[in-house]
């Protein structure tokens, strides 16, 4: 069904970002961004599910015919993803406005560009349009990181951009190879071509090379192994509220990218095992690196990468349950991880540091924030009744369902290590006696509000997972397929 309002989901945030840029330094910037942010959150409810074609593209056309039209598709899973993305951006904006007395219109505009680019990546059914908005997302993420003004953020950004430039050029090369072989950039057309090709795919070296290059790009953009340390350095260099939003963008880009890979290359037996191996790498290396950190922000950054491994792992399993578990875990993860980053910003705001050795005793001054953060820590560790428990349980069932108990075991062990790391962080920040003079600022009410909303949603989805799963399951059922080679 043709839906005219789908492009508004991308166009409106772009217009808002331009307005905010023009309003830099002007009065009423706060009021304006808060009002327009609410409109952006409401937008996903206005569009009907279906597709929107730009330029009258004829679906199903192939074999080097001119098919320049871009297509956007919108379904229940995309609606949920865009809604959560917009909500977390809004909470990041609230936290930013609470922590900084002179808000920057330019900085706020880059937060909104982040929504626009990630939304376009989620919506698009055109692989080149996907590449373009991935690049825009990369630039907006970098801009949010360098806004901190520290030399550490510049170093992290240079490294991220250099590796990113290589990865994205290789993705462009893969797109070129697919265009040469298939004759279309439309993902649905490519999927149809690949399905018709069947096992003949394995005899086409250009398509095999394209698969490898696209998986390389997926690992980079999602911060999976071997790019986990570059991505976590980016999270660790940003202001915590921005880190929460950047990791949210990354998770939804990861999901959209993985769905494209599954749609195009589902017939290639080595693609899903390769994706699963990268996911396991991120999961294990992420949590091991997190255990070694002495800085709260960096610890959370490595956990963000480790949890990306869970999301990617579920999607790589590729069965309906695996895909549903992966997408559900992405939604859950961005909620509790954003809560943890905002909790970290409270600590940074009060104590002017996130170094564990200089922190401690926060439970005395901010017991309510401590309780909320502890809830988020339980959620990331997969403890009931929080949402992390529900999605991790689904992931375990998905791994067992394809006859891979070793994957389920790794997931359990990483979860235990996550719990240990989170409890260490809680002890160092909240429970340990603080050394030296105590000079601490009061907590901004905006941060407490954001924490209440996020942790409340974690509990709500933990108790009623169907609230999210009813949006995810139809798409996962449609997309999923048995594990290559069957269940051992």
């Amino acid at each position: 069904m043709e839906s005219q309002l789908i492009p508004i989901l991308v166009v409106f945030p772009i217009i808002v970002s331009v307005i905010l840029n023009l309003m830099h330094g002007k009065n009423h910037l706060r009021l304006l961004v808060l009002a327009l942010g609410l409109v952006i959150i409401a937008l996903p409810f206005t569009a009907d599910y279906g597709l929107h074609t730009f330029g009258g593209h004829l679906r199903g056309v192939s074999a080097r015919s001119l098919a320049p039209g871009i297509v956007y598709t919108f379904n229940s899973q995309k609606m949920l993803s865009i809604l959560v993305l917009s909500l977390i951006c809004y909470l990041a904006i609230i936290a930013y406005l609470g922590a900084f007395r002179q808000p920057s219109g330019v900085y706020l505009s880059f937060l909104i560009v982040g929504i626009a680019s990630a939304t376009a990546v989620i919506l698009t059914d055109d692989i080149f349009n996907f590449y373009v908005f991935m690049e825009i997302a990369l630039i907006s993420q970098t801009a949010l990181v360098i806004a901190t003004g520290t030399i550490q953020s510049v170093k992290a950004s240079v490294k991220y951009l250099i590796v990113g430039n290589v990865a994205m050029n290789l993705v462009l090369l893969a797109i070129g190879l697919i265009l040469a072989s298939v004759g279309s950039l439309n993902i649905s057309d490519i999927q149809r071509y690949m399905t018709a090709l069947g096992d003949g795919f394995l005899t086409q070296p250009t398509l095999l090379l394209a698969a490898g290059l696209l998986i390389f790009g997926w690992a980079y953009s999602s911060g999976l192994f071997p790019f986990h340390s570059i991505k976590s350095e980016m999270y660790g260099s940003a202001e915590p509220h921005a880190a929460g939003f950047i990791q949210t963008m990354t998770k939804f880009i990861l999901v959209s990218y993985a769905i494209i890979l599954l749609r195009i290359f589902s017939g290639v037996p080595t693609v899903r095992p390769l994706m699963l191996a990268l996911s396991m790498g991120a999961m294990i290396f992420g949590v091991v690196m997190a255990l070694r950190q002495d800085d709260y922000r960096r610890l959370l950054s490595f956990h963000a990468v480790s949890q990306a491994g869970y999301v990617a792992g579920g999607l790589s399993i590729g069965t309906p349950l695996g895909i549903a578990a992966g997408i559900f875990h992405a939604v859950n993860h961005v909620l509790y991880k954003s809560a943890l980053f905002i909790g970290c910003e409270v600590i940074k705001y009060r104590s002017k540091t996130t170094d564990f050795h200089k922190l401690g005793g926060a439970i005395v001054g901010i017991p309510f924030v401590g309780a909320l953060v502890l809830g988020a820590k339980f959620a990331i560790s997969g403890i009931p009744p929080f949402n992390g428990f529900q999605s991790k349980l689904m992931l375990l069932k998905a791994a067992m369902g394809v006859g891979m108990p070793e994957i389920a075991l790794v997931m359990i062990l990483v979860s235990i290590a996550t719990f240990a790391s989170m409890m260490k962080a809680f002890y160092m920040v909240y429970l340990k006696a603080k050394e030296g003079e105590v000079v601490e600022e009061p907590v901004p009410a905006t941060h407490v509000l954001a924490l209440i909303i996020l942790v409340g949603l974690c509990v709500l989805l933990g108790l009623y997972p169907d609230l999210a799963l009813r949006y995810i399951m139809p798409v996962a059922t449609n997309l999923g397929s048995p594990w290559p080679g069957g269940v051992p």
Partner: protein
Amino acid sequence: MIQLASYLTAGILVLVGLFAVIFKDNLIKKVMGLVFISDGVNLVLISMGYRVDGIIPILTPEMDAQTFASLAAYPLTMALVLTAIVIAVSTTTLILGLIIRLYQHEKSLSVEKIWGGK
């Protein structure tokens, strides 16, 4: 033949670029490597649209549509390359700007000195 030569050139550009990005210590040389990679990939795309004795893909009123379809080079790849060039300019400018900032602070462009071998 022309197409093959341009594919070979593109391959050499990408390999030289990757070599510079991986093995060169100077940040500016790394950025030059990135530009080489980007140019190589763009050349692959442009070469894909090449047609022997082809014409520019602009349909004028006096031109027959059938003749145009049989002779015109593939325009889609050109549109992709135009967009890719714009993106490459943006990201390269951003990297160079950050490198200037890094140089002002570190007084060096050496990866070894700035990151201490990491």
